[in-house]
């Protein structure tokens, strides 16, 4: 089954757990949203087996056929999400995390109250329409990795310190603690407060901003799934340059009108050149001229405590395979590594000084079969996990040292 072919489909079903009424049903085929194809009887039985089990205190989590994986998940006993995917290399870990993101996205848009206490199904359905755009981006092939890694996608700007300083000054001037600068869904710089945001929303808000149609300025009510699931906040976005947006998360104040062009100009005009330099950074993540080994085709660097990541498939762009394939290979490799070898949730609780497990995995590599020969290597050092995709000519026994060197070079950045 080809990844671009019609065979690769993901179906996401959302049902009200108590009544079994479908709230929405999203599908994507070959990475692009498509019309739902599942007949209602199938939706009904998928929900039925799960409900039947629940009545007998048996929680059905997942099922696999030779090419398809189905994952069930119910949230707060009121919403059941079911995902059915036959994408290649799909795994339960990926689908489970997807469901968590989808539910968080629903909370972000309509709030937890609406979802746990469904009074009017029809109204809820209508409200949830606003979240389709965001949800569809999880089903498709995104350029970001946050949905899978649960880390915030970042880029490394050329003049980071200056930008950081300006951002802090701007935040102070507007009286909000939560300010960030985003380029196509990735964080260029953010205030301390912004980085303290809890897990789902820290990934979701940049993701939301990236998925919305471009606009000069927005004032968007959001619930924070972790921080404030019932009380909405305001998300203000201001486009500085095309693709480069300033985000503020705030309460009733300041009103959008207060953030007039003069204010922006005062703060950001001096940084015009560095900001322009940020624009192409989106997919590249690393500044121009950063020394990377020529064999490296793709890179995913995670900081497990700060929960930030760098993800790029731009190096040696002219070589095979295409960026899309590289991205998917790296994502699949991350899934494999996280689900089999490295503990899936290292979390901040597991510190260096914790008890030493007798046998700890440190690195792993994968050489793909005949015809391709691409190599993937993962290396964990301290709190950083680096995944590289390398061209076939790189010697297999040198993979680890190459990864170690690259990680050392990247350490000051993240």
């Amino acid at each position, binding site marked *: 089954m080809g990844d671009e072919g019609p065979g690769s489909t993901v179906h996401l079903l959302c049902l009200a757990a108590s009544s079994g009424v479908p709230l929405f049903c999203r599908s994507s085929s070959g990475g692009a949203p498509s019309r739902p194809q599942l007949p209602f009887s199938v939706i009904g039985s998928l929900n039925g087996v799960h409900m039947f089990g629940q009545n007998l205190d048996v929680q059905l*989590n997942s099922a696999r056929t030779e090419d398809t994986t189905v994952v069930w998940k119910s949230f707060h006993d009121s919403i059941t999400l079911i995902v059915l995917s036959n994408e290649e290399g799909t795994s339960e870990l990926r689908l489970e995390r997807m469901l968590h993101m989808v539910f968080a996205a629903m909370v972000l848009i309509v709030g937890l109250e609406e979802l746990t206490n469904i009074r009017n199904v029809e109204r809820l359905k209508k409200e949830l329409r606003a979240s389709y755009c965001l949800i569809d981006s999880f089903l498709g092939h995104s350029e970001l990795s946050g949905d899978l890694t649960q880390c915030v996608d970042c880029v490394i700007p050329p003049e980071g310190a200056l930008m950081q300083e300006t951002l802090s000054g701007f935040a102070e001037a507007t009286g909000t603690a939560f300010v960030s600068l985003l380029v196509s869904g990735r964080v260029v710089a953010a205030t301390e407060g912004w980085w303290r945001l809890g897990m789902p929303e820290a990934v979701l808000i940049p993701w939301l901003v990236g998925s919305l149609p471009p606009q000069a300025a927005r004032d968007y009510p959001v619930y924070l799934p972790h921080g404030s699931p019932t009380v909405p906040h305001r998300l203000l976005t201001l486009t500085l340059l095309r693709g480069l947006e300033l985000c503020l998360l705030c309460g009733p104040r300041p009103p959008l009108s207060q953030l007039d062009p003069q204010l922006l100009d005062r703060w950001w005009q001096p940084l015009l050149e560095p900001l322009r330099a940020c624009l192409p950074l989106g997919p590249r993540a690393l500044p121009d001229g950063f020394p990377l080994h020529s064999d490296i085709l793709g890179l995913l660097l995670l900081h497990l405590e700060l929960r930030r990541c760098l993800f790029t498939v731009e190096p040696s762009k002219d070589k095979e395979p295409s960026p899309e394939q590289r991205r998917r290979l790296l994502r699949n490799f991350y899934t494999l590594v996280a689900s089999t070898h490295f503990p899936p949730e290292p979390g901040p609780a597991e510190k260096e000084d914790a008890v030493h497990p007798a046998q700890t*995995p440190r690195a*792993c590599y994968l050489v*793909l*079969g005949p015809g391709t020969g691409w190599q993937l290597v993962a290396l964990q050092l301290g709190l950083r996990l680096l995944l590289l995709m390398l061209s076939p000519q790189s010697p297999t026994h040198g993979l680890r040292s190459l990864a170690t060197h690259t990680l050392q070079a990247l350490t000051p950045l993240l």
Partner: protein
Amino acid sequence: MMADPAWRDPSGRPAELPGDLSSQEEEEEEADAEASDLSSCSSASSDTDLEPEWLDSVQRNGELFYLELSEDEEESLLPETQTVNHVNHVRFSEKEVIIEEDDPRERKKYEPKLKRFTKILKSKRLLPKRNHKKNSNDSGPVSILKHRSNQKTGLTVQQRYKDVMVYINPKKLTVIKAREPLKLLEVLVGIIHQTKWSWRRSGKQADGERLVVHGLLPGGSAMKSGQVLVGDVLVAVNDVEVTSENIERVLSCIPGPMQVKLTFENAYAVKKETAQPKKKKTQACTNDLVKLLCGLEADGVQQSALDVPHITMYLTLQIHSEAAREEEILYHYPVSEASQKLKSVRGIFLTLCDMLESVTGTQVTSSSLHLNGKQIHVAYLKESDKLLLIGLPAEEVPLPQLRNMIEDAAQTLKFMYGSLDSAFCQVENAPRLDHFFSLFFKRALQPDKFYVSASPSAQQYDAASAVLLDNLPGVRWLALPQELKVELDTALSDLEAADFAELSEDYYDMRRLYTILGSSLFYKGYLVCSHLPKDDVVEIAAYCRQYCLLPLAAKQRIGQLIIWREVFPRYHLQPPTGSDTEVFQEPEGRYFLLIVGLRHYMLCVLLEAGGCASKAIGTPGPDCIYVDQVKATLHQLEGIDSRIEEQLATPLGPCLSCADWFLAVPREKADGLTTSPILSRLQGPSKTATSPTCRRTFFSDYSFKARKPSPSRSSGGCEPGERGEGVGLSPHTTPDAVRKQRESDGSDDNVALLKLTRKKSTLPNPFHLGNLKKELSENDLEVYNMVKLTSGPENTLFHYVALETMQGIFITPTHEEVAQLGGSIHSQLIKNFHQCCLSIRAIFQQTLKEEKKKALSGGGDSESANSLSSLTPVKEHGVLFECSPENWTDQKKAPPVMCYWVVGRLFLHPKPQELYVCFHDSVSEIAIEMAFKLFFGLTL
């Protein structure tokens, strides 16, 4: 550890009369019909009836599972008081364990047929004499038990070793010319050591070569001395180490009448010190294993298994609405509360199976659910409109293993019954399936209780490796040197030719009953020789594994094991591919599997009825002729087992290192090690003992990252006591003994030297492999290189598993090798290695599946281009692990860390091969080179 049962039960075994012996020689014991009770002792019928003792256990459908343990195993099974019955037996009679599943009355139908045949043969004196039963008649009376017990009462504290001076007169020899030549020990010293197999059965194989005193010759010098007791072990003669192999040579060197110093290991002391506590424990396990095999539940085991939810069900997807309740369940096991829940949600499984197949077009393979806070994986196997389900907790059985297990179980059931339907849908099969699945679940849930091996380390190794090895599509193979292989091949070929007189068609003017398609010989669970097609041997091995016969043969010396059943080998029963007359067509025959086990040997023979042989009618039981011929073949192989044993201890495969050697932890205990007399003796003759500088590097804060000096100094978690004991108990494995033996044998120098070096490298003694090069001549270097798998100056290989699917075999270090390495970290490493390999293999299996799919669809290019974004096909996968000693108490210093790789490599062409290696991180290895070295010359 030679445990003379009489010592453990002195009261129950009074003195024997010398005159009784003659009546024992053809002793036959028959179990009565009620003998299914383990502890029931049958009466000895001392007549020379030739009717085989297993004849009564043949079931109505012709199947036979007959297991009779060797003496010491039996002893452990019986309550001590029972042994009183056997007053007039010199050797400890064999009791039988008989599995009685059928009503004896119903057996009558076919019994006459078998008996009749036996009688014909008997009258023609054609049945081979069951010569193994006589064993002690030629060695004179051995009834000195009284003598011994008198002695014993006076003993309170005994030294472990004792020296006894005896007077020896070699001139006696000329007087007794008529005797066989190799009886010097008996004739000169008056010590009876039974090398004949009856006694050897009772000793453990590892010390099979030890000269245990089984009896004293009346009037012999040993008896006169009054200090030699039955059960003592003769260790040295005039300080020359002796074993059963060299004793005759040593004694023949005595020029004239003289006083000779005999050194004995004290039986009583040994047992007190080492044997008894250990013995107790393993016996308990042994009992369980045997009881399980026989279908009798060991209550404790069963009880604890019940608490864990697990289930197997065979459901039908065709439900008739008017039928009775639970009609869709054709079979389920077990009936327990924890499993009840899983049974009650079968609707989920049925719905998923039906619905997902219609939605996705592919069959459902597994699902996961949470039950009482436990995650349970359920594996599905759908065949036509029936569904086989196996559910096990994720904690115990990871999903890839479960997938393999269900396929394995289904394959074995098909091998046994032809199809899943015929296995599950026949009511009379239910108890057999219950037994099958009770073994299945116990293996899955309590692996450590199951793999009862000779030593705790081997047991640990078994339990750790089961997760991977149990489901490999191959058989554990032991590579043997050419000459040994030829010997085995010849023996099996002779059997397979089936031209023994009884089977000659002309002789009786009747068609022979079966054609022997081939046979496979297992030794201690290792395949040593096979003349069967790959598919057959894999299926037979899977059958043996499911019924735990392989661990049984490894641990216990089987007195006699006979299994007979009809089987349905896939290879022979696949439908003819075309009407091409040129191609060989399998005859439409029936196939029977005959397994005969004797001590550590197990010979599996596949028989075909129909074709050239006469057609099988009804459900024939085992035929005496074939059983006896197979048995005779095994008897013929008796002499070889010591050589196979030697191969087990030092197989032809690559050398291994112990992980603990690389964790250079300074330990005071090491001093205690060097003071051990045995060890110093060991180090004495070997020139390669560690140089002082090397020792210094070890005791100083030695970092293994400095690659130059070998971290060969053994240290780490391996307890010195344990090691000393290991060496001390088997003196014949010391290098100088091997060398001595080799030199006197004058055998091929190359081989001897090779073995010598291998021996050294696997000893816990620190030997830098690099140093060994100096010892070897130029010519030997080539051989030496073959043996070392890793590159770099030191041997960094810890473990390996190599699977070769073309021949259906895999090789891996033997239990003996792993036991020699010891080490607490090493055993953890092995456990981790196998678990990691399981997940690596899961990825490889995915690749293999994709390849198969591609081959089926004609290998279109478009598809391979499309699948570029998925992680298949994978050809190599490696994981680096870091480990440090457990229970590190030193707060100031960080524990030492060692890194090692677990690398798996998959070769798709010409036939899939899989290699898994585990090696130290210090040298970068190229897996493909290692694979080449390992697979080179790997032929059955």
